[in-house]
């Protein structure tokens, strides 16, 4: 329960989901990956759901971006699930580590904020804009409009994230948040909130499969639910108080830690 609390808080803060941190921790306690995978999915769903109200109040979740990118991820996840076994776990883990490191460097290199407050923009434009993937968010009382770009590249990255999820069972937040922020040019707070929303959908659909197949230990699941519930709320509270560069630096550090964990697992 304690592990679920900590990993969910950290995962929500960076829009990563907690599973990629929780899964290696639980495996290190002697549980098998098959036992741990549904618990990781559950922690993602609970963390995502617990963060929902605070992120919706801040108007940083762009549901349209979430729905569009999630379609690519889900398609990739189905393809990845069907192709499971084609790639060795060793090779896949190294690919995951490389992707995490690349995302860490891409996010960490950039200084300052991409989108600046617009003094001309009225408060009424804060939120997601109807019929588009653009919008505006509020930063320290100022309105910051943003326009997403390179949607095709973003969707391709989401598809790859889905394939990796389908192949490995880890959540794709560590790819989705940097892809939404660095490829599609959404502000990191929007990218983080939107990814928190979308990974909840992926986790929920995969969790239903695991429950149907009887792979979930429901007592452990109840403990993870309680820990992740509190952790997700704490993570979203802290996220709302941090500046975008701080979140991005934190995200980069977490990605480096994740890459190290992944490499350590296969060495």
């Amino acid at each position, binding site marked *: 329960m304690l592990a679920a609390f900590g990993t969910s808080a950290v995962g929500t803060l960076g829009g990563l989901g907690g599973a990629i941190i929780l899964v290696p921790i639980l495996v290190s306690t002697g549980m098998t990956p098959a036992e741990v995978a549904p618990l990781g999915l559950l922690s993602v769903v609970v963390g995502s759901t617990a963060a929902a*109200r605070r992120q*919706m109040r801040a108007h940083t979740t762009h549901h349209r971006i979430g729905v569009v990118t999630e379609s690519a991820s889900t398609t990739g996840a189905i393809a990845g*699930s069907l192709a499971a076994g084609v790639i060795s776990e060793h090779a896949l883990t190294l690919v995951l580590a490389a992707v995490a490191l690349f995302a860490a460097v891409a996010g960490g290199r950039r200084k300052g904020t991409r989108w600046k407050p617009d003094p001309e923009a009225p408060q009424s434009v804060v939120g997601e804009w109807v*019929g588009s993937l653009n919008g505006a968010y509020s930063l320290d009382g100022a309105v910051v409009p943003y326009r997403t770009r390179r949607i095709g590249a973003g969707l391709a990255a989401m598809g790859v994230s889905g394939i990796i999820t389908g192949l490995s069972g880890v959540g794709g937040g560590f790819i989705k948040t940097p892809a939404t922020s660095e490829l599609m040019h959404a502000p990191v707070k929007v990218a983080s909130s939107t990814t928190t929303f979308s990974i*909840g959908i992926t986790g*929920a659909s995969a969790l239903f499969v695991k429950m*149907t197949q009887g792979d979930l230990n429901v007592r452990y699941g109840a403990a993870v639910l*309680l820990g992740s519930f509190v952790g997700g709320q704490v993570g979203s509270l802290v996220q709302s108080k941090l500046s975008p560069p701080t979140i991005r630096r934190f995200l980069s550090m977490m990605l480096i830690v994740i890459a190290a964990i992944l490499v350590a697992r296969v060495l």
Partner: protein
Amino acid sequence: MSEYGTVDPSQHDAEERLGNVIVRVLYVAAAVALVGLLVPNGEPVAAVAIAIVAAVPILRVGWLVWRWARIGDRRFMGAAIVLLVLIGAGPLLALVA
């Protein structure tokens, strides 16, 4: 023509209400999970708690379909419906496979 897009005027209130509902559902699920942990042979109770939580993100997509249909945002309503179909297809394919 404005350089800014239009925000659905009821979006903020609707999200506020949905957020409140989600939090209440989570509190209920957490309480049910706690009961499932504390009582002997509480596995079925814990399973109900987990099913409640897992249903929330999918119902949220359904809510988006309804919202976007109401304001006439057909393109994104269609995208959300496609997503729901994909969500349904994934578990079905996995079960068949």
